[in-house]
């Protein structure tokens, strides 16, 4: 079993190193070589993760721990390389392997003759490694490594067409949201190290059972709650939950398969995945479960309201994804963790499929016998029926503009950026004053 899961990490790692080194050696691989290689890699990785998942199931869901020597040691601190193979991780790894395999095959014809084919393959491979790392990591420190790889590849693929303005602009939007929430992981890790001397999420809940830990000397309930809040904060951006929902629809700038794999399937579900990892910890703090449930619920309602006004295929799917992920958050908050895992898998597959097929819509509609010329397509209203007509029309406009989320975000940012603005004003004045001084001196002469 150890070899199985290690090979899941090492195969993508070796492949990326190989690609990276050959890039620096200026070797240009023919497209065929790349697509054949990733084909075999994804077959092997899928088979391994399948057997790993089977082993875990046979093991009756007993998680297996793997500890390796510390990587870095500074004083008391050790960066421990610790892995965990359990049902959640193995399932996510299997999902990763299967979906990336499908995407690799899809891209073979889709990105044929494309200049950036190498780049695309490289980034998807890096995504695979990142996700495998997150799936099996047992500590926040290690999760962070995989987490960052996923974030970086995601941003680079949004900006796949980097010679156009909008993709670059939107990838910047994504990276800002990511970075802001990555602080959550770092903060959680720092606080956990400080107060509990570990970030291992299998150990943390056990520590909580020790009554001493809740005493003031060890941080007390407030600090421990904050660790949980930081983890929730970290999960917000990746899964597009409020208030970080507006970057996700804007991220649909890359080639369709990358939108499918990131924003329909694997990257968006990392949020709930992290929550599942910390579920045992959250259980001790009902407040945290409430927060998860409320954030999830609000996001689900918000995204479904906005999503139903969208008229283009991809942002519509993006909002639909956010709303389902919101529901998954609620499920986690309610304690249905296994169900949430199932929901994640089902949702990821469905969205990948819908994203990949999203260019068929015109054909689908036009060949559909129900859709008649000169006849309005019958769409059932649901929630909208409960409000009066003028109100409904107003809500439509608000929903069309995403309930002005960007506007409010800007307002919040303005609060933080006012010192900068004051400084800029000051500098302007300073410069003009100087100018006046210079003029004055010149005049004197």
């Amino acid at each position, binding site marked *: 079993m150890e070899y199985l899961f290690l090979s899941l990490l090492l195969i993508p790692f070796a492949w990326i190193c190989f690609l990276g080194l050959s890039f620096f050696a200026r070797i240009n691989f023919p497209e065929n070589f790349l697509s054949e290689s990733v084909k075999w890699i994804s077959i092997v990785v899928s088979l391994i993760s399948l057997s790993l998942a089977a082993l875990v199931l046979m093991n009756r869901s007993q998680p297996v721990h793997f500890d390796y020597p510390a990587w870095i040691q500074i004083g008391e601190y050790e960066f421990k390389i610790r892995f965990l193979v359990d049902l959640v991780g193995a399932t996510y790894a299997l999902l990763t392997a299967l979906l990336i395999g*499908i995407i690799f095959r*899809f891209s073979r014809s889709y990105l044929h003759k*494309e200049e950036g084919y190498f780049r695309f393959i490289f980034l998807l491979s890096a995504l695979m490694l990142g996700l495998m790392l997150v799936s099996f990591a047992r500590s926040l420190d290690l999760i962070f490594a995989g987490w960052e790889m996923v974030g970086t590849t995601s941003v680079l693929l949004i900006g*796949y067409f980097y010679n156009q303005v909008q993709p670059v602009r939107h990838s910047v939007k994504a990276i800002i949201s990511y970075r802001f929430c990555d602080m959550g992981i770092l903060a959680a890790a720092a606080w956990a190290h400080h107060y509990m001397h570990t970030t291992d999420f299998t150990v943390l809940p056990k520590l909580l059972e020790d009554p001493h830990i809740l005493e003031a000397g060890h941080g007390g309930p407030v600090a421990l709650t904050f660790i949980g809040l930081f983890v929730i904060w970290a999960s917000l951006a990746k899964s597009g939950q409020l208030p970080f929902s507006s970057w996700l629809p804007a991220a649909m*700038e890359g080639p369709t398969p990358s939108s499918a794999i990131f924003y329909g399937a694997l990257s968006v579900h990392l949020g709930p995945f992290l929550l599942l990892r910390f579920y045992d910890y959250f259980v001790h703090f009902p407040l945290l479960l409430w927060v998860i449930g409320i954030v999830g619920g609000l996001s689900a309602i918000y995204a479904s309201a906005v999503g139903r006004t969208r008229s*283009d295929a991809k942002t*519509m799917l993006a909002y639909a994804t956010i709303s389902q992920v919101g529901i998954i958050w609620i499920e986690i908050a309610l304690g249905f963790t296994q169900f949430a895992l199932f929901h994640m898998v089902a*949702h990821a597959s469905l969205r990948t499929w819908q994203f990949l097929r999203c260019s068929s819509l*015109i054909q689908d509609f036009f060949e559909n016998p129900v859709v008649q010329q000169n006849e309005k397509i019958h769409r059932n209203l649901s929630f909208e029926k409960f409000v009066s007509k003028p109100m409904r029309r107003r809500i439509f406009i608000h929903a069309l503009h995403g309930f002005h989320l960007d*506007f409010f975000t800007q307002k919040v940012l303005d609060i933080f950026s006012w010192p900068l603005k004051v400084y800029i004003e000051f500098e302007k004045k300073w410069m003009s004053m100087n100018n006046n001084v210079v003029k004055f001196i010149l005049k004197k002469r």
Partner: protein
Amino acid sequence: MSQAQDTLSFEAILERIRKKLPIQNPLHSFVHNNILMMFEGQEFHDALSEAGKLYRANSYWSIEKYKAQFQQKKITEKDIIDGIDQYSLHYHDSSTAQKLGLSLKDFYYRLTFSEMAFNDDDIQPEIHDLNLWDKCAEKMSGQSLKLNQGAIKYRAKEYWEKYYNESISSTTHPYIINLISSFLDQGQSFWANPYSEKGFWDFFCQDVDIVQNFGADWQKILGQKLQAFKGHTPQEIIESELSMMNIPREAWESYLLDVLFDLKGWSGMVNKLETEPWQATVKAPNIKLIDFIASLVLIESSLDDFHASAHSTDLAMIYGRQEETTLRGFQLSLALYQITKEFKLDSSWLDGLDASELVLIIKDIDAAEKEHHVRLWHEAFESHFYREAMSAIISHDRGHATFLNPQAQVLFCIDDREESIRRHLEEVNPLIKTFGVVGFFGIDMKFSSVKHKRLIAQCPPVIQASRIVREISRDTKKGQSFTRFNHLLGGSDLSLYYMSRTLFRGFLSTLVLGVLSIFPMFLQVFFPNQSKGFREKFKRLLSPAPATEMDILQTTEGQGYTKIEMAKIVEAILGMCGIKTEFAKLVFLMGHGSSSNNNPFKQAYGCGACGGNAGLPNSRAFAKMVNDKEVRSHLAEAGILIPDETYFVAGFHDTCTDEVQFFDLEVMPEGYEEDFERIKGDLNKACKLNAFERCQRFSSVEAKEDPDIALKHVRERAEDLAQPRPEYGHSNNALAIVGLRDMTKGLFLNRRSFLLTYDWKIDPEGEILKQVVLGGVPVAVNINMDYYFSCVDNDKYGCGSKLPLNLTSLLGVMTGSSSDLRIGLARQMIEIHEPIRNMTIVEAPLERVKKIFDGHPRLKNILYNHWMRLAVFDPEAQIWYMFKEHAFQQIAVEKSMIKHFKSSKDLVHLSVTDNDFAEID
């Protein structure tokens, strides 16, 4: 005075604006059009210059590309001279040339090979000839030249972009795109826009009213402006805004066009849905172009106000500013040096001229370089192809075409993609005769199938479909249950589409469908061919498709045809083929279409003569007509004697999968099976070879070697979800040949030519020729021009790469999450195309051709303004004529050493891209 006012009235301006907007249909009814159809009244190159400015596009390949062709000998010295001959017929102002002491043609020749840049700091020539340099410097010292003098810019947009790096495409465009895509939506979103009844202007006002409280600063200004204009009509608002910007009325048109062309796709779509509401996918929304213009103008002026206050700039200085570039002494001396060197002039030419004259010459040459340089290369490039085409046709040996008593006659569409399959079929069985007629077989019908009842026009878009023809089930009961089943299936498809995207129903459907969806996804991505088989088997199992027939007989007004009308239709088509009595036992009618998956541009691959749909219903209807006894007796009166044992079979050729299908075989009388099976076998063999020929352009290595694998490969392409190039469509089309098959039989044309059958011997009046030319040539030119423009500037005239496309409003595609509605063809569709204007070659007496082209307004326009080329081979006099500058001129076409190959298969296998023309023995 009053006339001047008329042309400057708002209505007149709006009318002119409408004419210049893109004309593309919603994608579900995409038809190939000359996207600059409205510019056809101008000479080709002039129109391209004007359109290029509007579309901000290049209207030709880059000069480097032409030069690369020159390096590869695909443009020769002779072609350049030919091109100049052709070009100088129209552009014959020789004043600049004279100043240099050159003849016009010499001037053009030297210009073609020159490399000059007068106002580019990056490209500066090296100075080798110091004497000359001193002379130039001396002459030009103290001189200056103003370029683009008098060009007044009314739009502030470029100013903000240039000096403040503020782009409107990232501030205001996302906002207005959001509104317009929601308003035009035809049913993609779950929540239909509740403002659709009152119209776009109402929606816009309401929206601004709400958004101004939550939006950027310019939106607040917009809100105030709109408040101030309360009660005014959009027209009044536009007029007052434009007057406020101090734009003279003469410049309104160009200003508004410039604003609209920022979002040319959406503007064109708004215009389309207003003027031709029946083109809407479901229902045309209540929108007027003027509403859209008013909103754009208001947004623009609000943004200007905002920028002006943010950057403390005076708007009055920006509106109507003049931006000139001035060349000073040093640059002018460089220019003079370059002219002398590049035009290979002796330095003494400078002596006789004083400085001010020289400055004017520099100005003229700068203009000439910008105007003519790339055009000359383009003309040369085209000349090469035209010359090769004509000499191939006369070098071709017509001997092996004539024989009597063919085993079968097969009628194909005139489509350039059918050229290859006809050639292969004739090679497989030399006793088969093939013909090319318009693929809708003269039947102008709206058609509804048993599967869905919606009426689809099955005729060229220029013709109004006059009749309704339905496909009906032979067994009514089975048909009804089939229709019911399909309705059920369609309904559940549709509700699943909406449901899976909402909250609670989405939750349920995700749980149910989610895990299940991995299986079809897996199948369709990894095994596209098998997955299609599965799907079809499954559907057949649930509800087998009933045997059907075409209900063509007239029952009520507007429904079906009378027998006499049928006879007329048949007579016309058979007349075009030139068949009167010599019918084979079996005559095949091959409609065509193209299947592809996950492809928003599917319509662009269909049969152009059937409005982009598959031509199958037409071939079935036609076969039923001509097999009718009564129709045949009417035909006999007209002199078309179809023997009783002749039977017409309706068939269908899929140009993507290279499959042929036949229909209504259950009513085929006995005694034909053996012949039918034999011809069917031949057709299947031809399909395989055709697939093999097409695969030479694709990248699959195995498919290039083996016809069997090739056939499998093309079928996979059609089913592959991920395939952006199911087929290459009309890529490389450049010819239309009108004449008997003798002219081209055994000649390899590399799928570049439309083939229209016409027998000049049986048509002394030219009536048949008229039908052939009017039915085929405009379609060929439309397709040609669509490919031309998408090819020369794919980003501006076309729609860019297919990879990030995002379907919107069921009308079209955007790039990424929000962009202009894209027009034209995708990069993957045109990547192997060569932009060459269509050349039509007609074999008929000159007078007949002349009469037709002069008698048809559009054809006359495109011919006289060089949107196409026309060559006529007069078979009686054995003389070639070429239409040049308003007249047919006799030309000499030399025979060429044409390569010979044993079969098309050998040829394509050996060298597919090297030969456009070759002889098959």
